């Protein structure tokens, strides 16, 4: 075989390799979104479905009280005004010139409209308000906008999802896309969908936001986590919402 032929062979082999891996990635990526709910044990599903026993409802109830104190005077009944909010966030804010999530929108409202103080990211009040507002959209499909002004943020979020990181050198996609549904020790790996956030997580014994989960996941692959509310996590949140587009909002979901 002359050198030219050899080179041709190498190129075709390389092509074949790329094509195979690309089609495998495509089939994994195009797998229908599946809520974390479907990976749960029957007992945990029952706990989530029980409107009273679901511990997340404690935060929803607290959020309702906070809503009545400050938000209701402008926004009226949350059931009407906040019905679809959780399906649309994170969303591009024209006044800020960047994509913001629900937590940041609540704080923007508190600071600019109410002239009050911002709530700390993972505080009980913030979790209560996000849980209450997201709960209004329960059952509605996730439908975020990723075109136009949000496109850059979305592209960064997608890159984050496929970027290997940490000492274990794993990208989100390695587990949650390639191996979703497989076992990892005693656990079933989920797709990592975020349609139920904020969630009541049994491991934490409390409510947690999407970003707390991102921090937890990053630490699990021994990567340095980003701060709660950081641009990196908002971008990832947008991509994750888009990835689970069409899944019903489940807030407050119960997860392991």
């Amino acid at each position, binding site marked *: 075989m002359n050198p030219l032929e050899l080179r041709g062979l190498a190129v075709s082999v390389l092509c074949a390799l790329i094509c195979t891996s690309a089609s495998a990635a495509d089939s994994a990526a195009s797998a229908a979104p599946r809520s974390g709910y479907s990976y749960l044990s029957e007992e945990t599903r029952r706990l989530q479905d029980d409107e*009273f*026993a679901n*511990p997340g*409802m*404690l935060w929803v109830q607290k959020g309702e009280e906070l809503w009545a104190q400050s938000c209701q005077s402008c926004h009226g009944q949350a059931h009407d005004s906040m019905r679809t909010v959780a399906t649309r966030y994170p969303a591009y804010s024209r006044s800020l010139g960047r994509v913001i999530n629900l937590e940041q929108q609540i704080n923007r409202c508190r600071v600019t409209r109410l002239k009050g103080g911002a709530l700390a990211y993972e505080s009980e009040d913030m979790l209560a308000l996000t849980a209450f507002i997201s709960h209004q959209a329960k059952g509605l499909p996730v439908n975020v906008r990723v075109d136009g002004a949000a496109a850059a943020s979305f592209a960064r979020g997608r890159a984050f999802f496929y970027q290997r990181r940490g000492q274990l050198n794993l990208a989100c996609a390695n587990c949650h896309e390639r191996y979703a549904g497989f076992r990892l020790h005693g656990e079933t790996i989920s797709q990592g969908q975020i349609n139920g956030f904020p969630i009541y997580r049994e491991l934490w014994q*409390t409510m947690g936001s999407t970003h707390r989960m991102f921090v937890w996941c990053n630490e699990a692959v021994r990567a340095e986590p980003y701060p709660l509310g950081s641009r990196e996590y908002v971008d990832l949140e947008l991509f994750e919402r888009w990835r689970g587009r069409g899944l019903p909002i489940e807030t407050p979901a119960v997860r392991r």
Partner: protein
Amino acid sequence: MPNSRIKVPESAAAGESIEIRAMIMHPMENGFNFDSQGTTIPVHIITDFVCTYDGAEIVRVQLQPGLSANPYFSFYLTVTRSGSVDFKWTDQDGTVTTNSAQLQVT
């Protein structure tokens, strides 16, 4: 005062057995957890839960550190007369949380 949730039917027939449910938001720290600095988080629990029906005690629970957060109780009551169902949770620091509902016998 911590957030509590209760569920008592508004009305029931005399002799009927009804389900009563109660839950309180509480971390129930068991004393075996550490904060980010490695310091032990001290025990912080609800120690007593009492439910009374028209003044008479129907359930009393002593809680221990082994219970998970946001303790939830569910029990049955045989209805005899109209009256209020009162719930009382006592924290180890003495804080008392109360909640109550009116039960109408038809």
